[in-house]
């Protein structure tokens, strides 16, 4: 399964995603330059974390207009697999591949720490290697990760089981303190209507190796492989 990692000016988790695919998954991977619309025939596009174009405007607001993202939009429309992590999730929302938006954390500060996620739907290309309700430990690192959307969208996401991950405690309980940024309904990650696009604020690529504190994030990449083969 061939992966592509988009490199925007200001991306800074592109290498982390690249090496996770290459070294941990052992799959072929290429960088996709933001200025090129050629997606190099990859099977899955990863939109990585970072500060695309400096994010001096709304996060991801400029990245959506890049040739690589326009190509990714078309790719997704044809059912191609797209994984947006952190800034990548913000870019996917700005690109309208996913509904809603990511805004400033309730605490007003950047937060980097380990958190827990509850797996809410395992019947997707991104979660097939997880068990229903499985709790995974994955870090976050963002200043603008509070997911917001209107009531109608929330109802639709919920009804269609498109909320794949929610913030929770180590034992799976959702409390006020287990939500690190004030996200609506504890939402950490959502999928598109066809489940071929996932955006999430936590960083599974930083949790793919036990030496880094957790290997739980690996399951998301392994789910993709399982789905593909």
């Amino acid at each position, binding site marked *: 399964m061939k992966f592509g990692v988009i490199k925007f000016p200001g991306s800074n988790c592109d*290498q982390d995603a690249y090496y996770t695919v290459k070294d941990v998954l052992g799959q072929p991977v290429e960088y996709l330059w933001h200025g090129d619309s050629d997606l190099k025939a990859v099977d899955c596009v990863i939109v990585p974390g970072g500060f695309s*174009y400096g994010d001096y405007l709304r996060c991801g607001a400029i990245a959506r207009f890049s040739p690589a993202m326009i190509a990714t939009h078309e790719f997704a429309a044809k059912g191609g697999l797209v994984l947006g992590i952190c800034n990548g999730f913000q870019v996917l929302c700005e690109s309208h591949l996913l509904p809603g938006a990511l805004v400033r954390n309730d605490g007003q500060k950047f937060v980097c720490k380990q958190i827990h996620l509850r797996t809410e739907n395992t019947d997707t290309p991104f979660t097939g290697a997880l068990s229903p309700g499985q709790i995974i430990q994955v870090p976050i690192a963002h200043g603008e990760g509070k997911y917001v959307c209107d009531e109608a969208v929330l109802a639709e996401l919920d009804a269609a089981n498109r909320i794949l991950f929610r913030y929770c405690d180590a034992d799976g309980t959702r409390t006020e303190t287990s939500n690190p940024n004030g996200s609506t309904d504890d939402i950490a990650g959502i999928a598109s209507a066809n489940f071929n696009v996932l955006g999430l604020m936590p960083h599974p690529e930083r949790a793919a190796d036990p030496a*880094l504190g957790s290997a739980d994030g690996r399951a998301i990449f392994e789910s993709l492989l399982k789905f593909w083969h």
Partner: protein
Amino acid sequence: MTNLQNNPTITPEMYREMGLNDAEFTLVVQTLGRQPTLTELGMYAVMWSEHCGYKYSRPVLRLFKKYKEAMDAGEVENAGVIDIGGNIGVVMKMESHNHPSAVEPFQGAATGVGGILRDIFTMGARPIAILNSLRFGPIDQENGDARTRYLFEHVVSGISHYGNCVGVPNVGGEIYFHPSYQGNPLVNAMAIGVVPMDKIASAGAKGVGNPVLYIGSATGKDGIHGATFASVELGPDSESKRPNVQMGDPFAEKLLIESTLEALATGYIVGIQDMGAAGLTCSTCETAAKAGMGMTIDVRKVPLREADMTPYEVMLSESQERMLAIIEKGHEAEVAAVFHKWGLSAEVIGEVTDTGRVVILDHGVVVADVPAQSLTDDCPTYTLSASEPAYINEVQSADLSNLPEPTDYNDVLLKLLASPSIASKRWVYDQYDSMVQTQTTVLPGAADAAVLRLRDSGGKGLALTTDCNPRYCYLDPYLGAMIAVAEAARNLSCVGATPLAVTDCLNFASPEKPEGFWQFRRAVAGLADACEAFGTPVISGNVSFYNETPEHAIFPTPTVGMVGLLPDADKRVTMGFQNEGDLIYLLGGGAPTFGGSEYLALIHGQEVGSPPALDVEAEKALHTLLRTAIDKKLLKSAHDISDGGLAVALAECCLAGQFGAELEQSKYGARELFAEMTATVVVSVAPTAATEFETLSGKSPIGTVTGDRLVFGENASGPTLLVSVSDLRAAYEGAIPAAMASAVHDLEG
């Protein structure tokens, strides 16, 4: 080249205002054989400031052996690279941004991070970690004030903003709060990078006719004379220096990192240097002087933010995120194309000459023509007079033998844990991305040093720490500085690393006062002797003088940044207790001392005495024992005893590991619990490994990891000290958030 007309007459007021004295001005006139132009005067003033020219510190810095050798050989450049094998070189440097942060904390701290990163990647190295050593006045409810909380909050935000955006993990450091830093915070940023040993970039302008390429952001009017500002005391008018502070753009920096490393890979970059303090002036004359060459540039070819900037302003601007590169002639277009691909400016602004002179043109008209070397190597140096401050004898002769014993040891421990200098710094490090680049295998707060597992190195690890107990350095600058080195080496040994090298950031008051200069000289001697003893040469560093306000001077603060190597990063040990039933041992064992302790300051309100004695051989034996035990996988945890003594160290082991501990020995008093010492470490060992460990160390256990309470001295009359881990946690984790919650009230009030 002549021209040089249309120039105002230079008056004593003009050169004094810029920071030159009469003798220095006379030397400028002698060097040039004429009156300087305004542009030339500005160039000399900034290059001959202490900040750039080290005119007061250079004679003392020769105490650092490696620095002296490099100076004598004219080879300062590559002295900063540590070869760790496998063609991997490690570079590191620490730098202060104290004065900018005192007037504009957010940008001051942010640009401090930016500047130190550029020092790393201009050597061809990819920056892989940032650390910070910060000092502020008190922030707590009782002693702190709104201004200090504002400085603390915004310094942390500035570091967070810049470091997170450039994608270099912020993995560690230290923070102290003390009244001596009131109004003059210290912001020391350290960066570390890795470079293939055969790809180290040079900063020399070699090759006559080679084009000089200006790279990065446009030049604006910000930061003019920033280096001069760094070379005077802060005063009531410091607020008017706000325009001297530069503005940072981490996005531009990120582009510079990627494009510079890509451009260096073309092989056509002959020399490269960043534009930091003194901007274009420093980068042109230093690269030229280093190669024994000259350089001619035209300021009108420099990308400018405001077209009407004068040559003086262009040459002295400290606008951020700019670099100067010397390109192999004929390949400038290929190199520029790399920068253009990343959306950055890259303009040829001049060329290398064989005249040894830096010539500045304005539309082709000569506005400055000076010998390059006269601005750098020929900067006048001074050996200032030094005299021991009167307080030294007074504080060291204080009698501490009859301190009253506390009535409630639990209360003392909780107070120490809640002292902001000891308390958890989670409020700070949660704002820093400590994990990006996916090499951080020991995160902030988890151990005595951060550990990075290097990609493509066969599993090697780098351990990093910064250390300096400023109270020790105040009481005895020589011993205090030695202890800073010893503690850094101990911290690295606690994770299993062998210390390799040191970078320092020497923060002191005015050297022009004999007492201030004495503190500086004694501390540098202590650092130099300790670095020699521990085999960790000082490979880079920075001096920051004039850290004082009209009210007071800072405590002498020679911050030590140290890097160590783990052959196998996966063997790294952290400080938290891991398992119920593990045995606790005390290794080493320096003499417990109240002098300079946090206990003495916090509980008894005294900052007197002598710091704990340092036995270098005992330290080294302890460090070797730690590394051996860790290599044999005998240790579950290791944590050194420092501020707050044994009780605080054990509390931290409990807090980092979620378990309690019981210490069996019956006799515990304030000296055993709270006095401080060198060369002492608390470790825990699984019962199955106890025999082997006891054979190796010759030690017997002093307690057990168990339950959810920290208990000292269980005997017939009950324990001396007993606190639940949750109470320890509340004190330790609550202190800084509580102080900063009041920062919100400061604003609302």
